[in-house]
């Protein structure tokens, strides 16, 4: 027994942090998927997208979502940080290790870290832009017509779907019950589907013709 351990009343914190990590992750996935389905309303037509945007405006859903997502980001990163190879020496060990044992899931964990950091940065930019401009067909179309923004959103789409899919896989793996092969298959199909839907949505915005500045 060590002094600090004896003086720390309970070691429940690790457990709580682990739960926070999982719950915030699940909520972020739920948000991401809902978000992508909402954006996909453009596939039905600009009027559907507009109606959904109006609905969100009416109930102030945008600011609520922004605050909730930032809160969940903070919780998720705060909780996950304890697992990360934070020191430079640990980074070197982790990457060399993955190379040495050539293990797929170990590589995917490193990609989780990379995509996670990229998503953090890109999502914050995205949130800032949307908070500034609001949700409308014209504003979205304006961004997608800009090649730099188009690439930005393609990368954000791929990274977040990948990160969400691997994160979900990891949760199910940890808790048992479902076979890993089946998990890989189901999550793979869902993710590819969502990426396709996301790409089609982006394509719809590109193809959209604005008449006199309105859709």
């Amino acid at each position, binding site marked *: 027994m060590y002094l600090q351990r004896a003086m720390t009343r309970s*070691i*429940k914190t*690790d*457990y709580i942090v682990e739960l926070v990590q999982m719950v915030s992750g699940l909520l972020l996935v739920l948000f991401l998927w809902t978000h992508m389905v909402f954006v996909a309303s453009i596939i039905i037509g600009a009027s559907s997208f507009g109606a959904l945007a109006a609905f969100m405006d009416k109930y102030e859903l945008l600011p609520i979502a922004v605050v909730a997502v930032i809160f969940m980001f903070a919780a998720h990163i705060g909780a996950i940080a304890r697992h990360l190879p934070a020191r430079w020496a640990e980074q070197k060990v982790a990457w060399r290790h993955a190379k*040495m044992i050539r293990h797929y*899931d170990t590589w995917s964990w490193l990609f989780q870290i990379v995509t996670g950091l990229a998503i953090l940065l890109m999502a914050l930019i995205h949130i800032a832009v949307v908070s500034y401009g609001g949700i409308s067909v014209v504003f979205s179309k304006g961004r997608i017509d800009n090649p730099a923004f188009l690439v930005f959103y393609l990368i954000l789409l791929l990274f977040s779907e990948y990160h969400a899919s691997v994160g979900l896989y*990891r949760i199910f793996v940890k*808790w*048992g019950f479902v076979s*890993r092969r089946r998990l890989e298959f189901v999550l793979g199909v869902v993710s590819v589907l969502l990426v396709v839907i996301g790409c089609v949505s982006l394509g719809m915005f590109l193809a959209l013709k604005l008449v006199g500045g309105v859709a």
Partner: protein
Amino acid sequence: MSPRQLTFHIFRYDPDRPEVKPHTQTFKIEEEMGMTLFVALNKIRDEIDPTLKFDFVCRASICGSCGMLINGKASLACKTLTKTLPSDITLFPLPAFKLLGDLSVDTGTWFRDMSMRTESWIHTDVEFDETAQEEKMDDDLALEIYEAERCIECGCCVGVCVTANIRQNFIGATGINRVSRFMLDPRDKRDEQEYFEVVGNDDGIFGCVGLMACEDTCPVGVPLRGQLAYVRRKMTVAGWHRK
């Protein structure tokens, strides 16, 4: 058909001679019928380089001494037939353990420490009565305990675990599997809160990030994912009850 020429790339390092940097040394030998890495390494030591360090005891995948990275995959050298490998074979010692030299690592100190920290013994205040009839255990339960007990402590699961490699105190799949064995055992009188103190933290089950390199590696096929999930579920319930 003439026998294959095997080229071994073997990690060499002597902690007592730090001036010689870690490097790989190449050895060429001729493959023999039914050759295992155990046989091959002994041949290299006998015929080419007597200073090569590696560990063996039983040669029958029971003692768990000869775990090493074989072309990147952790396994037991004694049960690995060279015919299952390409003619270029790279051997590294198991990571995460104290390196004694070349392919030899000290798993004993690590396992001793893990055993102490997980309190790997039956906790009971029942007085042992040597004249009494032994209590019979249910067959299914005995088999379930045996499933965890099959661990030979080779350390392969620890060697491949990225968490164990960057967090010195993480008890690894073998440690969590060990605890699961006691959780199943009705003779151990520890309650869930006592187990929580042992394994309900980041050095135990909540340190696991779920990469399952352990399960993909275990040379004796202990179903580690199931054992980890079992302990995780138990400890989640215990954490919920915890004041």
